[in-house]
């Protein structure tokens, strides 16, 4: 990679890191895991920079992040790290009032499996359609639908207060 291309790459990384870090943080729910995910995706993108430079490098990088997050290898590594560190302990929702529902929702989102959380982030934060999510993750639209349904169902189970919210409305 010559100096000109490296300068463009550095400019791209510097400019897009905050937005990409937000997505990585939402996908992982953890600062260190988010940093690791972003670096891993960048490491896969850098060798292809010459061909991606004139196309859509950010789209490619995001797709790598989404797929890396739900990949089998990463899941295995995450399980091993969790067994070693004992991190990601359960957070109990505070039942004191309605304002705590969001805090409980944060905790519930952390407890979702990576595949379900990724689908929720893509659908409700990135505002992608089911077809776009399926393309980004490399799976079928039916898989996206079922994962979304399961994720929402699981959130309802973890947050019984949300049911009360719906009844009040």
């Amino acid at each position, binding site marked *: 990679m010559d100096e000109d291309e490296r300068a463009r*790459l*550095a400019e791209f*990384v*510097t400019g897009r*890191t*905050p937005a990409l*870090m*937000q*997505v*990585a*943080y*939402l996908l992982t*729910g953890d*600062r260190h895991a*988010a*940093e690791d995910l*972003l*670096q*891993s995706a*960048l*490491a*896969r993108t*850098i*060798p292809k920079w010459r061909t991606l430079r004139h196309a859509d490098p950010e789209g490619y990088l995001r797709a790598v992040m989404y797929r890396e997050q739900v990949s089998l290898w990463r899941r295995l590594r995450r399980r091993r790290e969790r067994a070693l560190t004992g991190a990601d302990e359960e957070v109990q929702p505070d039942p004191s009032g309605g304002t705590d*529902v*969001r805090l409980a*929702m*944060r905790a519930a*989102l952390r407890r979702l499996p990576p595949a379900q959380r990724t689908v*929720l*982030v893509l659908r*409700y*934060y990135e505002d992608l359609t089911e077809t776009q999510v399926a393309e980004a993750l490399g799976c079928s639209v039916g898989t996206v639908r079922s994962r979304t349904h399961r994720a*929402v169902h699981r*959130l*309802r189970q973890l*947050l019984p207060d*949300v049911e009360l*919210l*719906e009844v009040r*409305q």
Partner: protein
Amino acid sequence: MTGPIEDLIRATLSDLAEEAPTVQDQLIPAERRARSRQRTTVTLGVAGVAAAVLLGAPIALAASRDDAPPPFAPGSTAIPSPTLPPSPSGPWLITPSDTPTPPPSPSGSWLFTPSGTPTPPPSPSGSWLFTPSGTAGGDRAVGWAAVQSPGPRH
């Protein structure tokens, strides 16, 4: 499909995104990772090729030597066993490993001395000599005698 829970999910994700940590230069560690990945890929590729050669070379050698048919493969013509000469009058020299076969003479009888069955000589160099033991009114042999031929004398 925007119920209260979907709205809550959107709001919570937006809140979480605002709290995302700010990180500085990610390019240098990412480049280091990319080099490491490349090195690992090359190493694994070389190891895979070496393993394939190590496994495949003996198999390829064995396959290349299979051109000649096996000696007793089904369908191949069997090698005929050597037959004794049809002449009944000539002396037969049979080594201990051979099995004597009867001569083609229909009327002749076999006489094995001293016990009827030729036994191998005690010395490995000895051999058995079958000779016609007698004639009955002509040249026809009526019996056969197994006589141990003398071995080499020192």
